[in-house]
Structures are given as C-alpha cells and as structure tokens.
C-alpha cells in the first residue's frame, strides 16, 4: 500500500526566485494533491488607489512587477484612457508596442535561463541570461531604467525615441536573434532537455480551457488565443498570429515561448518600420468617471485591468487579474499524478510571477 505524506514546497526553494508555498500530498513519490498559499510578500498595491491620484497611480502600476513593468503601466493607462475617451497619438501607440515587445523578449529569455538552471544545464542558463543583458541595455538606453521604465502616462508616453535609438534597437535585436538560434536549437532538440520536458505535465486543450489557463500555457495546449489580437497599442497595424503547440506538455510550453521570441523580433522590426512621426502625448483634462475592463497580452499571458472612477481625482477601484493567478488552478491540476522530482520543472513551466500575483 502506498505511503501517504505531505511535503512542504517553498516559500524558499532553489527554483523559485519569489516566495510561494505548496503543500504537496504524496503517495510514495506521486503527487496526488496540491494546496497552494501565497501572500508572503503581498504589497496591497491595488489598495493604494485610495491614496494616489489617477495620474500618479501609473507609477504604482509600473512597479507591480519588474519584468512586465511597461505592460502594467500600459494596461492601467488604457483603462483610464477608455473611460475618459482619450485618443492617444499614433506614435505613442507604436512606442508602447515596441517597449512591451522588448519586455516579452526580456521575460522569455529570463524564463529560458531559469529553465536551464532548473534542469542543471548551466550553460543554457548563462547563455540565455547573457542575451537578456542586451535587451536590458536597450531598455536602459531608451527609458533610463533597466527594470522599471516609467514611460507610460495617461494620454501617451513620457519619452520618445529618435532614429538613432530605433536603429540601435534594430541592431540589438538582429544580434540577439542570431545568437539565440543555436540556443533555441539546443532547447528544442537536445536529448537531455527533451527527456526532462517531453510528455511531462500534460494539460489537455479541454483542461486548459476549463481550468482557466492563459498565455503560453493555454497556447501550448493548442488553443489559438492571443489578446494582442484585440488590437490595442499598434497591434491593429501589425502582423500577430497566435503561436501554438499541440501536445500540451512542458516541451510545448518551452516551444511556444521560443517561437514567441522570434515573433517579438519580427513585431519590433515591423513597428519600427511603420512608426509615424508626431506627438507622443495629449493633454488630459478632468477626472475619470466610469468603469472599464482592459485585456492585454503580457509575456506570461492575458492580464485584465479594471478601473472604476467617479469623477474624483482618486479612482474608486483598480483591479489587476494577473496571468499567474489564472495559471494556478491549471498548475494544481497538472501537478496531480506527476512525480515529486518533476515538480520544480512543472512549476517553472507556468512561468510564475509571484511579484505580479502579490500586487
């Protein structure tokens, strides 16, 4: 008869850069149940809307996470702009799109490095993070910050990029792309990587939908859904095709993220090629009065921003449903039936961002 035991996993664990705790219910080495708990570093940032006016709150929104900082600022600003009927200049839409695609490159390279590290494949970890440095340098050059960018504002963006900067970005992504090809080949074809990822942590298409999976986790199970197709920012004018994989396993999730990296390079090139001249912001008058839900595709999946205002300078409610929050139920489902040794890799394949979740 199998021996039943409960093993605590986290909040401190070598594969977890941020604290989350799971109680793993095991029968011998097989996981049969998972009880998650979060809140170790909860910051109450949503609640801060009570104390900051709606323009200042953009800075708070950008500090929800250090990887999708630009996207959080964008999501919040889009919601306020919809409520206030503000038409943002086209150049600002393109600049926002370039920065959020750079964030996707940053995020996926970071994840590839963490995956290499979790598998014990140190050279993959270091190579991925070496490439990530180049995109962080481009953030530094274009926004003045490597992690927190503070570029969004209600009504547009705060910083412009001249043609030299845009050419520098093109040069940087050409370099990253050519250096990423051999690394991607190793991730997708190496025997060691495949033996750790193929057929492990399968999430079927039906389960992915029923459990509310989002982002690469959803698309790796064969669901063609990408919130960029909603057309926010400059995506309406760009070529976006959801990247999908059919098998729904850990390898599929890795494959989707690698293909999305190359897709992001193409989107950045297309956006730089089409960026119009003109203003980067419009003046904002009055206070938001109304409510709106905005969906955007963050690197980890669809994020939903809700803003409700009642004509005062403080908004009544800001709510962010992060991709990681949505991916917890599918992760719990996926872990059931797996081996204890596969748990760290499986948790990593949802690309958890506890910083976003502990908003």
């Amino acid at each position: 008869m199998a021996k039943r035991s409960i093993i605590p996993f986290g909040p401190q664990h070598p594969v977890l850069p941020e604290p989350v705790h799971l109680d793993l219910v095991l029968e011998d080495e097989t996981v049969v149940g998972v009880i998650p708990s979060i809140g170790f570093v909860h910051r109450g940032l949503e609640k801060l809307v009570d104390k900051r006016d709606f323009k200042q709150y953009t800075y708070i929104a950008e500090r929800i996470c250090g990887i999708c900082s630009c996207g959080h600022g964008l999501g919040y600003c889009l919601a306020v702009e919809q409520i206030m009927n503000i038409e943002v200049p086209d150049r600002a839409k393109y600049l926002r799109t370039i920065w959020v695609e750079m964030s996707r490159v940053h995020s996926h390279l970071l994840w590839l490095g963490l995956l290499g590290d979790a598998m014990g494949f140190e050279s993959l970890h270091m190579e991925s993070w070496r490439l990530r440095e180049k995109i962080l340098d481009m953030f530094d050059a274009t926004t003045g910050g490597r992690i927190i960018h503070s570029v969004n504002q209600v009504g547009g963006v705060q910083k412009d990029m001249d043609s030299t900067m845009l050419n520098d970005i093109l040069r940087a992504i050409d370099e990253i792309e050519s250096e990423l090809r051999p690394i991607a080949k190793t991730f997708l074809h190496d025997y060691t990587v495949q033996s750790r990822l193929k057929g492990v942590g399968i999430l079927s298409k039906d389960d992915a939908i029923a459990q509310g999976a989002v982002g690469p986790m959803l698309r790796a199970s064969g669901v063609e859904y990408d919130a960029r197709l909603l057309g926010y920012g400059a995506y309406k004018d760009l070529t976006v095709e959801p990247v999908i994989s059919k098998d729904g396993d850990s390898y599929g999730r890795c494959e989707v993220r690698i293909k999305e990296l190359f897709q992001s390079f193409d989107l950045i090139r297309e956006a730089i090629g089409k960026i119009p001249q003109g203003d980067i912001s419009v003046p904002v008058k009055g206070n938001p009065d109304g409510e709106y839900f905005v969906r955007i595709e963050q690197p980890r999946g669809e994020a939903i921003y809700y803003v409700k205002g009642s004509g005062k300078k403080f908004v009544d409610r800001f709510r962010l449903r992060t991709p990681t929050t949505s991916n917890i139920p599918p992760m719990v489902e996926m872990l059931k039936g797996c081996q204890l040794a596969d748990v760290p890799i499986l948790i990593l394949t949802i690309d958890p961002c506890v910083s976003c979740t502990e908003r």
Partner: protein
Amino acid sequence: MDDYRSEIRKISMSEFFPAIVHMKTDKWRLVQICATTIEGGYEMSYSFCRGYDMVTLRLEPKEDEEVASITQIYPCAYIQENEAAELFGVKIGRIKPDYQDRLYRIDQTAPFKDKE
C-alpha cells in the same frame, strides 16, 4: 479595441446562478472575478470571454449576504473566490476547495474591506 464586445450586465441574486449556468452552456470561459467594496456591501464582477468578446455579470450583495460559489460550474473560480473572501471579507458559500483564510498568508483579516 472597440471592435469586440465588452459589456457589463447587472443581475440580481435570484438571477445569479441561472445566469452563470447559461454562460457555461453557452461556452463562455471565466476570466476573472473582481470584488469591490461599496456602501453597505460589495460589488462582485464575474467576467467571461468567448473568443475575444467579454461580458461581465455584476452582482451587488449586501455586507452580510452570502453569495453562492460558482466552483461547481467553473472549477477554476476557487482561487479568485478565496481571494475575494480573504481580502475583502465577501461571504461566499461552498467554495470548493475553501482555504478558510489560508490562501493568503497575511496577518490582517479582510484588509481591503474598508475604504480609508
């Protein structure tokens, strides 16, 4: 962004459960549950997507009124229902699984309940 449907529909407590069942049978997926504190109670927003369309069902329970959990219909709702119960103090009955104030490891009970 205006090319896709995005609407908020107010519903009463008696309409709530049938409306959720209807969304499920009509193949809408649950994307988020949002609690907001209002005068004398809460505003609960249940958002659903089908393709790129989004519909939000809005329920306004009073402070002591219990809202039925939708986990029987949408199993993935448990994380956000537990969150609404723990951070806002919304009374939600029969969440499956109900973490009994242990999803969030925080000291304060319902920290988002009162407006400052």
